[in-house]
């Protein structure tokens, strides 16, 4: 993978009152990569994603997505960029008043480029891609299980064929089986469709099995960003606790990248 970074964050400061969440943070993602963002609870992963998505304005620093400075470019360009990415929110954020079908069809209808028949076919393809039964197309989000919500939200995130996909805690709240299946799904889709993935997660297994690179968010910045073996070798209290505790070692022992060492 070569070319300019898809996401490029430089010198980012995020401040809420007295609370400094990010202090001079740098972070970048290359095209086609899967990058995991790990960090303790409250370390500012969701906030960083929200900044990159342009939902919040950084206190200081620059954020470029697809090479465009998000917070200073003109609104028309920003709108175009927003169609090139897909987001899976931490809690799904499905529109509760719309059925599963309408949730996925909404972004397509917004384009005003395709007729209803065509949209129905595309929605069915997407539902099929995330492994949802067609019977659930008319179900309301409130009647879905947690895992199904994640799948539908993923289908909605992918419906505009994004080049860049953000996943916030994609496996939180799923049982180990389901989360493994979900990770496998994301990995398969990533291989097939070749999009770039930025994923915030707590889940070691998820991270180890899909990431090309791991960025560790601690002390209000990205302390290290690299392949799994590079990260594990880096000396930092959070990394020691997180990766080299018992749970961490169990997950790492399954990782192919480290077995060769």
């Amino acid at each position, binding site marked *: 993978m*070569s*070319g300019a970074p898809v996401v490029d964050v430089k010198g980012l400061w995020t401040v809420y009152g007295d609370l400094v969440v990010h202090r001079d943070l740098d972070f970048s993602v290359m*095209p086609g990569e899967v990058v995991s963002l790990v960090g303790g609870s409250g370390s500012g992963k969701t906030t960083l994603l929200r900044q990159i998505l342009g939902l919040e304005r950084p206190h200081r620093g620059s954020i470029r997505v697809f090479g465009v400075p998000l917070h200073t470019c003109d609104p028309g360009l920003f709108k175009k960029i927003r*169609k*090139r990415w897909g987001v899976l929110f931490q809690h799904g954020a499905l*529109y*509760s*008043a719309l059925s599963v079908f309408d949730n996925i069809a909404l972004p397509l209808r917004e*384009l005003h*480029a*395709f007729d209803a028949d*065509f949209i*129905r*076919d*595309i929605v*069915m*393809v*997407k*539902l*099929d*891609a995330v492994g949802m039964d*067609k019977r659930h197309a008319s179900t*309301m*989000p*409130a009647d879905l299980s947690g895992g199904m919500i994640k799948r539908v939200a993923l289908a909605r995130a992918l419906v*505009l*064929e994004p*080049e860049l996909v953000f996943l916030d805690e994609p496996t939180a709240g799923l049982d180990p089986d389901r989360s493994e299946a979900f990770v496998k799904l994301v990995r398969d889709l990533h291989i*097939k*469709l*070749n*999009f770039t993935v930025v994923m915030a997660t707590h889940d070691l297994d998820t991270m180890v099995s899909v990431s090309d690179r791991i960025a560790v968010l601690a002390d209000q910045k990205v302390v290290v960003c690299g392949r799994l073996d590079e990260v594990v070798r880096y000396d930092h209290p959070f990394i020691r606790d997180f990766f080299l505790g018992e749970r961490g070692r169990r997950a790492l022992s399954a990782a192919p990248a480290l077995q060769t060492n």
Partner: protein
Amino acid sequence: MQQTASKPVRDPDVQVTAAGDGAHVIHLSGAWDIRALESRGRTLQSALRDAARSTDADWDLTQIQRFDHIGAMLVWRTWGRCRPSRLQLKREHEIFFGACESAAAVASSPAAPDRFPLLLALGRGVWAVTGHVLEMLQLFGQLLIDAATVVRQPLLRPWREFSAAIYKIGAQALGITALVGFLIGVVLSYLSAEQLRLVGADVFIVNILGIGIVRELGPVVCSILVAGRSGSAITAQLGVMRVTEELDALSVMGISNTLRLILPKMAAIAVALPLLVLWTSGVALVGGAVSAKAELGMSFFQFFSALPAAVPEVNLWLGVGKAVVFGVLIALIACHFGLRIQPNTESLAAGTTRSVVTSITAVIVADAIIAVIFSDVGWS
């Protein structure tokens, strides 16, 4: 999504060339992804359809630079949802047609039209209203049982909720009810004064204002304000609690929704509304007196000393009693619609609207019924 291509990406294009043996070859080239199709979807669709007329065409898709599900679906539908016999395709584009194949869309048959739509609508309407009334009766019964429990077990009494509700429903509404009451008093007094002066019956302004405000306008106007203000708030609050599963959280802790949430609110409205009505009627009378002084030159002392003779005391009790009934109605309707809200935002909006409209209608209907029942009470 195959960007970073070395060649510049061209616009999507369809070209038909004739092969040697009289057959046609259809070449697709350029970018066939959502970004390109967004603006040209319809024209390309018709171009494809024109090209595909001849049944035994060769399809050459190898010149496509970018491809995705949207582009694949466009082509797939032109093919009539099955692969043509002669097709050249880049290997990495194979998966997009694989996805179209495996998702072979089921055509959902539209529901058969109803045969007697009007009759059906009428029946559904009657059925819905009956359901609402029965459910409200049930809720009211449950509240009576809860009230009995609370009387027997003082520990259960939800005093905090009760006092909080009194503050929100009563104290915080003092300003708006006073403003509305005062203005109604002024306007009513002004209009009546104009007419009374014509027939020289100035003193009767006290009777008109006294009876009109204390018996009718005070209770009704105040109840409508409270229905709009607090009724909607109660419905929305219960509805959001349903959406966020807080109602379920209370139930599983063994805390009764009706006892903790609804009973205190109903009791608070039943207590606060009569007091608000007294306040509103009082302020409206002051407004009337101000206007009477300006219009007819009647002094405040004259106005208020004539009031007890003009308006028998029973009118006051009638007004207060009506307020209690209206309060219970408003609370019951607001809670009923709040509890029925489904866990989605659309239902929340519809439920709140319906709650306010229903409670205002109910107040006016109840007022008419009470007016008929007490038609020979309270005249001097």
